[in-house]
Structure formats: C-alpha cells, structure tokens
C-alpha cells in the first residue's frame, strides 16, 4: 500500500469515520445546519444547542466519505463545550492545516493530533472539500445567523 494513501487515511481518520459518539439528532437544537456537497452528494445535518454563545450539545447524521465523516466527528469534538468565539481559532487552524497553499507547516499550526490527521489533504486538493464540508457549513450558518 502506498505511503501517500496511508497518510491520507491514517488511523485517526478511519477511526473517527467509524466513531458514532456524536451521531444522532437533537429535538431541541437551537441550530440545524445542512452541509451538502452538490458535486458528490455527501450530506450531513448538524444539530447544535447553543446557550450563551457556548455549544452545549451537538449531534449529527448523514452520509459521506470517510474524510467528511471523520472531519465532522472531529468538528463535533472540537466545538463541544466551547464558546463560539473560542472556537474561531480552532476553525482557522483547521482550515490552514488542509490548505495546500498555506505557508506554515501543519505542525506549526496546531499540535492537536486529530486536526493534524487531515494535513494529508494538502496532497489531495480534490478531497479538501470533503475535509471542510461541515466546517464550512457551520461557519456559514453561524455567520448568517
């Protein structure tokens, strides 16, 4: 098996893609966010309960490739319990990590190994939209709100 593909799907991604900790839905969500990629049909619905700017609960369900699933799971973990303001930094870090044009190396950006697991997306720019699908949708929904 070649090294590039191993790097892309390193254990954390395959592991997180199968992680069902946050799958499900919330009936009392304050925000319901649709993340949809028209080019491949991948689709997630994110349910958030935000109180006083803090994400108290998050569940998601949907359909997608391992990268989009894993990145949604990691998003859930990264934001849960955080204030939206604090999360801004994590969000930008993640975007930089997957950005193939970024100047900084992934390791210079963050030391969170779950975020860093997506660094190989830099080598696969056509998969970047998978990594950022839910992240982009979340930002868009919370900004327009």
């Amino acid at each position, binding site marked *: *098996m*070649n090294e*590039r*593909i191993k790097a*892309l*799907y390193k254990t954390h991604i*395959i592991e997180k893609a199968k992680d069902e900790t946050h799958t499900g839905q919330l009936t009392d969500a304050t925000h319901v966010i649709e993340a949809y990629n028209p*080019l*491949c*049909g*991948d*689709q997630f619905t994110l349910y958030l309960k935000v109180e006083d700017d803090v994400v108290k609960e998050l569940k998601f369900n949907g*359909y*997608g*490739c*391992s*990268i989009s699933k894993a990145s949604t799971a990691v998003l859930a973990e990264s934001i849960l319990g955080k204030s939206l303001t604090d999360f801004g930094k994590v969000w930008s870090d993640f975007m930089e990590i997957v950005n193939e044009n970024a100047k900084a190396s992934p390791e210079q950006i963050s030391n969170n190994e779950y975020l860093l697991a997506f660094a190989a997306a830099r080598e*696969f720019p056509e*998969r970047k939209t*998978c990594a950022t699908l839910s992240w982009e949708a979340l930002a868009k929904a919370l900004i327009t709100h």
Partner: protein
Amino acid sequence: MTNHFPIFSKHTPLGQPLIYLDSAASTQKPQVVIDTITDFYTNEYASTGRGSYWPANAASAKYEQVRHQVASFLNAKSDREIVFTSGTTDAINKVARSFVYPTLSPGDCVVTTTMEHHSNYLPWQQICKEKKCELVVAPLNQNGILNTLALEAQLAKGAKFLALTAVSNVLGTQNDVTAIVSLAHQYDVPVLVDAAQAVAHYTIDVQAWDCDFLVFSGHKCYGSTGVGVLYGKTDYLAEMQPANYGGGMVQKVNTIDSSFRPIPHKHEAGTPNVAGVIGLGAALEFLQKKGLENVYEHEQALTVYALNQLAAMDSVTIYGSVEQRGPVISFNLDGVHPHDLSTFLNEQGICIRAGHHCAQPLMQWLDVAATARVSFGMYNTKVDIDQLVAGLKSAYQFFR
C-alpha cells in the same frame, strides 16, 4: 488499440500506467484527432463564414464537410438536419427552449424518465415549471429498465414531448429507442433522443430510429471539447425559433425585425467552434475506420467480463440489469464510500468516477447517495478490469 491514444504511452504523476475507466464522462483523444486540430491551428487557421481568401474558404469548406460527415454518420436525410452546438446540454436546452416551450400551455405535460442525466431532465423541469406544466417522469422496472407500459399510459394522456436517453450514464441500460419512438409517434408525441452515451459505442441511425431530435457531444466520442450536435428533422428545425441571435444566422436586419437564413444556419449564431468541429470530423472518421461493430463487440465482451468479475465479489453490489447494457457499470463496495474508493484507486493509476453522476433522480430511485462507476472505451482491455478487481480487493481490506 491504446497505441492510437498518446496519453496511454505516458505514466501518471505517481509513475503508474494509466488505467482510464471513465469514458462515460469523457473519452481520451486519438493522435489523429489531436493532429487534425494542431494542423488546423498551425497551418490553415481562419474563421468560417464569408471570407473569400485562403485560409477562410478552406476552413469553411472543412466545416461544411464535417456537417456532411455527421449527417452520414447518423444516416440523416440531409446535411441541413445537422446543427453544431457547444455540446449535448446546449443542444437539449435549445430544443426545450425554442421548440417545446412555445408549444406548452398550462396543464400540459412533458415526459422524461427516471434514468436521465441532469442535462436531459432539468431543461424539461424548468420549462414545465415556468409554463405551469407537469413534468412526468416515466418509472423504471425493478431491474432499471424503462417501464414501457407506464410510459405508454402517460403518452396516451396527451403528452407534448418525450425526452429519453439512448443509454443510461449510470446503469448502462440501453433503451429500445426504435420501439419507444414508434410508441410515442402513435400518440403524436415528438421524441428527443439523448445519444451522449451511445454515439461512441454503437451505430446510430436516425432514419431507422425515426426520432425527431437527437443530440450528442464530441468529447464523448473521441473528439474535441466544446462541440456537440443537434440533429432535427427538417420541418422541426425549420419551425423552431433560433435560440441565439447574432452573426452568421441572419438574412436581413431591419430596425424592428429581421429575417433569418434557412436551416441549419439560422441555429448557428456567432463564430462557431471551428477547430472543435474539425476535430469532431477526425474523430468520427477514426471511429468509422475502426468500425462501430468492432467497437461494440469489443466493449460488450469487456462489459460482460467485468460484470462477471464484479459479481464474483461478495462485497460488491451492482446496479441495474445485466441484459442490454452499454459499457457502463455502477456499483458499490461494502463499507467503502465511492469517493474514498476513487481516491484509493487513483493511487494505483486507476480512474473511476464516484458520486451521483449528474443523475440525482436515479440516485433517489436507487436509494443511494452515490455510486462508484466504471465505463469503457475502445482502448480498454481485460487487464484493466483485472487491475480494477485487484484494486477493489485491497481497498476493501484497507478500509475495513
């Protein structure tokens, strides 16, 4: 056969031989097509139209010669029945907008099928929406074959038009176009045939099929990008308003109104894709030299072989019927998202398609969000399929 296609003599950036299994999206180009385009730009480039100098007259003559070639390729009655467009999508929109739209009144219906590509679905949906008409989507039988009984019931209710693909770009289903057109004509319903997935694979005969319109793209039959063909019966093309207005299609321009040239010219506004058309001519000649019967036989053998190989894998689900199908196979590998599969196989130089293949209505019918798809051209071999199967096996292991 690959020796005609220069791309196969190279390796991928990762150093693998290229195994191209996405001809349904677009075919690779034979050397003779590339050379024809290069030669045109290098040695005798000019725009067509009324240039009474060399190379403009040479370019115009070639352009009209390709029209003649397309007419005989499709067995059209006359060159005037051939309009060059920028692709299948453009051709279908022209017919929807300029031929069908003006005939619709609120409550009318237009019929299409569950297996259409978005390009043969959305134009009809949108004109129906605008005109408060109904888009009737003819259903499929369980095996992915068109339900002709249900179709006939819809036609009998007084449909205004039927738009139908010759071959599904997802299931590979090959419709019995002659029978369906004849059925539609019993109810006086004109028919457009989307031949995008047929043109490179078997012989089209618009007179035998008796279809009223037929469309295809050059890039899917070994030709240039940005060029397509709209075939239409003379009376229909003559009746149809131009979709675009501009240079080259006009007779006399007056302040308030204008008169237009006879068909096919009235449907070709603006400077055409001359290099594209000339490249298409080279592609059709190439196809005819190889012989569409030989191509068909070769690709059918490959398809059967691939279906057998895939069916032998427990982890693979194949969509659609085994009978009567073009060289297109959609499937899913248990527990592996098509996109992950595609990325994985790409590392081995194997190109497959993943997604909804611009056929969301069909995906809803299949009740999947996406499939993996392989499709063949004349350059594919059994070795490609063996590599694919090996790749599927290691992907299955890897993603477990």
